[in-house]
């Protein structure tokens, strides 16, 4: 009984986690850039949803397109403006660059919105679903459902559209794709922008459930790391699997070791995977 509830908690959490990580995973897999800004993008998405609700009365679930649009532009600008300059550079350079950018943007957010936690408090809160003794808050369920939907949408886009195929091609082999006529720089910018879009969407969903503050950006990033390694880089189904695994792991980990260790557990899992199975559960090869 207890275990079933914990499992359900984990799965619901996992769906959301998948959405958080998929954009990050794509950027890492295709551009070989670890985007430290990803966490801050998510937070920007959350703030968008929050202010849309406070000022315009738009329900967070419906402000996903708004957040997505804003982040698309922002991410595209960042990428073509700055990150493109260092895409082929060593790990240290790209990592430090995105770290510096993140410091800057995050500080802007803190100055603009203060570090206090905001919470979207719905006028008509969604209720709680009770099935066979298991309780699932409806807002988490809705968030999870939408998260999976969006992730699925992304997968379909990558699979079925021309641009999507181009992205996958660049991920597999940059030079070959260039030889095939793919404009690699544009694909980079687009992929980064898509990463931003997914982050913004995740942020909107998150605003429904968790408190919003620029200080949450690094914890989100930490989760994204773990999910990427668990699921394999650049792979959308991998991100989903990684997300679900992490959610369930954290849930049961909190039960077994106490809630304060949940995050440590995920990091230890990360290290173990890096050491023994860096290609993740699914075994897709990422960049070194």
């Amino acid at each position: 009984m207890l275990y079933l509830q914990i499992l359900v908690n984990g799965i619901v959490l996992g769906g959301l986690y998948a959405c958080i990580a998929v954009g990050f995973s794509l950027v890492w897999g295709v551009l070989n850039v670890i985007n430290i800004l990803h966490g801050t993008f998510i937070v920007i998405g959350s703030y968008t949803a929050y202010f849309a609700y406070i000022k315009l009365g738009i329900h967070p679930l419906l402000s996903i397109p708004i957040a997505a649009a804003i982040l698309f532009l922002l991410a595209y600008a960042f990428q073509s403006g700055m990150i493109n300059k260092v895409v082929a550079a060593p790990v240290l350079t790209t990592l430090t660059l995105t770290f510096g950018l993140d410091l800057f943007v995050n500080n802007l957010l803190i100055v603009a919105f203060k570090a206090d936690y905001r919470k979207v408090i719905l006028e008509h809160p969604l209720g709680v679903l009770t099935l066979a003794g298991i309780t699932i808050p409806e807002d988490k369920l809705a968030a999870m459902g939408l998260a999976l939907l969006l992730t699925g949408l992304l997968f379909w886009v990558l699979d079925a559209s021309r641009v999507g195929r181009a992205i996958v091609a660049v991920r597999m082999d940059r030079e070959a794709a260039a030889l095939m006529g793919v404009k690699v720089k544009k694909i980079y910018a687009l992929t980064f922008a898509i990463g931003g879009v997914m982050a913004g969407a995740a942020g909107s969903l998150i605003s429904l459930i968790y408190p919003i503050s620029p200080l949450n950006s690094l914890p989100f990033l930490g989760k994204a790391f773990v999910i990427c390694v668990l699921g394999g880089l650049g792979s959308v189904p991998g991100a989903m699997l990684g997300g679900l695994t992490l959610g369930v792991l954290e849930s049961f980990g909190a039960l077994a070791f106490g809630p304060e260790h949940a995050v440590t557990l995920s990091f230890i899992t990360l290290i173990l995977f890096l050491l023994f199975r860096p290609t993740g559960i699914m075994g897709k090869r990422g960049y070194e």
Partner: protein
Amino acid sequence: MKRNLLLLALIGILLAPMVANNYMIRLATIMMLYCVLALSWNFIGGLTGYPSFATAAFFGLGAYAGAVCQGQGVPMYLAWILGALMAAIFATGLGLAILRLRGHYFAIASLVVADVLREIVNSTTNLTGGGMGFNLPILKLEVDAQAKLFYYLMFVLALLTVATAVLVDRHRLGFGLRCIKQNEDAANMIGVNATIYKTVAFILSAVFVGWAGAFYASWVNYIEPGDVFDVLYSVKPIVMVLLGRAGTISGPIIGAIVFLLMEELVWRNFLTFHAGVLGLIVVALILYLPDGVLALNFRRLVAWRKNG
């Protein structure tokens, strides 16, 4: 002429505490701490080319090892050495585990280690005080003398680190590490045992940092897991080295000094936005000054100013 300048500078450093107030001495001590951190990272990051983010892990480990020992009654000076030793031993184990990862994976693994250590410290409340922090016994020394003591001690540690850096640079180890940075497989082929060399570099990047951590704990008398395992202790040394010039000896030193100056300036003037300004500086650094300050040819700059 150069030798006299060097001597002058040395005398300046030794005498400075006599004229400066305690706050300035504190600042100078931090500057030397930064030099130690930057030079240490340089071993694994600058020379060997492995982007290690484990500096915070070593610093925090050294701090807590030193603190806990002192809490158990171990004399301060011995506790520091134990702190350094613990960091070195940990680096050996960690290195053997993660040094076979490359690039991003190595970076992440090293980054995450600090978090894991922090949580372990957080949970072992009985030993380390956990989230409530750890209080170190206060020295029976009056304030001014204490400030000067730690200043000189940190200076000695910095000199030690510089000496080691010079030694490594001249020794086969330095050459081997540079080869590994260029091309690890090729290095292996010409007889450089990459695994051993990398591990030694990793240990070197840990031992002085651990020592500095133990110093730091005794210096501030109170440490918390969140403070000594702060990820910024991993990031700042990297920025300092990049600021100066990776792979050299004066590079990290100059980078550390310039970084501290910037930090103080920014902190005093941009109260709410200092982190942001720091971020901007880092971005500008990466985009426009990728080889560091030392790469600037000062003579050409001066000539350009004169003519233009």
